[in-house]
């Protein structure tokens, strides 16, 4: 079995990669296989498109864990799988509920215009909330393996970086500037903070948003919750870096995906993170030879068609080989790699997913 998929002793798998490489499917397959082999697994997608639940045969539903029936798959005892989809808005509400110092404070926040806008704006908040949900599952302790699918491209790095950014925000002067208690502000207000205030005031006047008082009120309402937020953010950061956590990069041997994978590798490096493995997905299986066609007794026109078909696929294979080579070259030394063959069809059933997982194992 490939080192990439040796998940014994692992408790968290994070699948990263560009969009369209089959990350979601691989995450689901890995989770399902682990469940069938007797582990209690939670698989979670933070991709707003509910693709994963779809593949797992679950309807688009509330963002609570849904049990995936494994009865037809002869799972070993103890094996179970729950799938869930992140709803950032709901997650944010839950966070507020947890840390609000009083019911009145909680209601004030949940009804706040800025808060509603902030929690609805998916970018950034979604990444942070994914970390929250991950932490919640982790602390709940019901699963002995959590598999996390991430949104495509640069956003996946955003996810890994979200806790740090939240910590940075919480320790910055922004909060002091915008009206939180002065003891949170690490430094006294300087000229540029006044400038910032001036910008906000100018923005209000010109834009018609009348934002400044609202932002100040919002920040004041959040007071008393910062410590909780910061604590959670740093826990997520720690969790991602545990030795029992593994980041799996998924890629395909296509030009754009290869470029994006290169960016992923360097972003991970910048964050001081190291991928635990690279799965190159949907690689064409080996092609048969031309001589087999020649040896048959088929009519000549049909032979020509088969030869043409083989030539077509050979051209694609050549294109792919070049990109495969590039991918191998950009992978950091010592990162195990797994080349997964294209199985020719999209998974429609749980059995398909198990088949994908088994072929991944066989590939190693």
């Amino acid at each position, binding site marked *: 079995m490939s080192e990439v998929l040796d998940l014994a002793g692992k408790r968290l798998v994070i699948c990263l990669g560009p969009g369209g*490489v089959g990350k979601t499917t691989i995450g689901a397959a890995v989770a399902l296989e682990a469940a069938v082999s007797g582990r209690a697994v939670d698989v979670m997608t933070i991709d707003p498109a509910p693709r994963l639940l779809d593949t797992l045969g679950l309807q688009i539903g509330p963002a609570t864990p849904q049990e995936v029936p494994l009865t037809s798959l002869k799972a070993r005892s103890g094996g179970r799988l729950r799938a869930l989809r992140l709803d950032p808005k709901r997650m944010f509400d839950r966070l507020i509920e947890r840390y609000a110092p009083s019911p009145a404070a909680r209601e004030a926040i949940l009804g706040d215009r800025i808060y509603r806008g902030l929690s609805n704006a998916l970018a950034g908040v979604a990444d942070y909330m994914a970390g929250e949900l991950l932490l919640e599952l982790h602390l709940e302790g019901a699963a002995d393996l959590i598999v996390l699918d991430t949104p495509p491209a640069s956003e996946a790095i955003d996810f890994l970086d979200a806790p740090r950014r939240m910590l940075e925000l919480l320790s910055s002067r922004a909060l002091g500037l915008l009206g939180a208690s002065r003891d949170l502000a690490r430094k006294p207000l300087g000229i*540029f903070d006044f400038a*910032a205030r001036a910008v906000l005031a100018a923005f209000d006047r010109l834009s*018609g948003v009348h934002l400044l008082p609202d932002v100040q009120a919002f920040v004041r309402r959040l007071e008393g919750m910062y410590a909780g937020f910061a604590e959670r953010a740093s826990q997520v950061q720690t969790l991602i870096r545990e030795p029992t956590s593994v980041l799996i990069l998924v890629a395909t041997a296509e030009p*754009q995906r290869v470029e994006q994978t290169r960016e992923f590798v360097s972003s991970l490096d910048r964050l001081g993170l190291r991928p635990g493995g690279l799965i190159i997905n949907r690689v064409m299986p080996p092609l048969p030879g031309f001589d087999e066609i020649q040896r048959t007794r088929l009519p000549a026109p049909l032979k020509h068609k088969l030869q*043409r078909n083989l030539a*077509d696929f050979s051209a694609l294979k050549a294109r792919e080989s070049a990109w495969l080579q590039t991918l191998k070259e950009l992978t950091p030394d010592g990162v195990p790699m797994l080349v997964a063959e294209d199985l020719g069809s999209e998974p429609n059933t749980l059995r398909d997913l198990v088949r994908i997982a088994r072929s991944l194992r066989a590939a190693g």
Partner: protein
Amino acid sequence: MTLPHLSLVTGKGGTGKSTVAAALALVLANHGETVLADLDQRGTAARLLGVDLDTRGHCSVAANLDVRSFSPRAELEAFIERIVPIKIISRRMLRSHTFGYVTAALPGLEAFLMLERLRQLADEAANRNGFVVIDGPATGTVLELLSVSPGVRDLAPSGTLNRLARSVDEFLQSPSRFGVLLTARPERLAVREALDALGTLRDQLMIGSAMAILNGVPEQLLSQSDYAKIHGLGDHRRLALQRKATCELAARAQGQFDRAGVEVIELPMLYTPEFARPQLEILASVLESFQKEQAEKGVNPHSR
């Protein structure tokens, strides 16, 4: 020419957004000054055209074709610089954490300013009788981007932003100025996501013009009776059947788009050992002939 002045190309990851955007830009450059722009600063479409963007994210491909890169962040910075004209202060602002927090508290502002930028680009293109092609982000991001304006109107009941929001809405709903091209491959999930997205564009966002591009449609080689004859040919049969399955998925997708009342262009699967400028030109010629057909019929292919 009947294509809108600005076409936004989007689709699921891996469906060939940049390829389609670059091919379309080649076609439009034959009819007027054309700008191909990406919003992610990766310069993918530029690389397909065989050029690299300079440090400002610009590049000229041909007399009539420029490639450029835009980023929401840069638009936001430009906006702040307009409001705070003292450069030294605005620059320090832009680097501070405070600023990051302010923008976080203004949800959708970056996206909105990006839309406003697209509107300006389309107007400029209309004035010189030219075109803009946007190599856009993935479908989900584009739908979020296009739905940001009502939120801004809500946030700013009057004033500059409110006026901008109304002009952005008007722009998005004008088939001569704005259109969305949704790329898909002959795969079940990709096609269904494209259909869902087209529904959202038309019914919820009131986008006047949206069409689908079905990318990578293979030419059918074997006839039905051929398959019966190659039973003993294991792997060759598998390859033939794989091709057949893709052809069938393409036909099925075509039917689904038809039933949904969505115009669709099929682009052929190109079986070549590399994909570069010559292959792009082939796809461009397919788009061009579709364009001619539509022009002869005298319809805007984007609006139905």
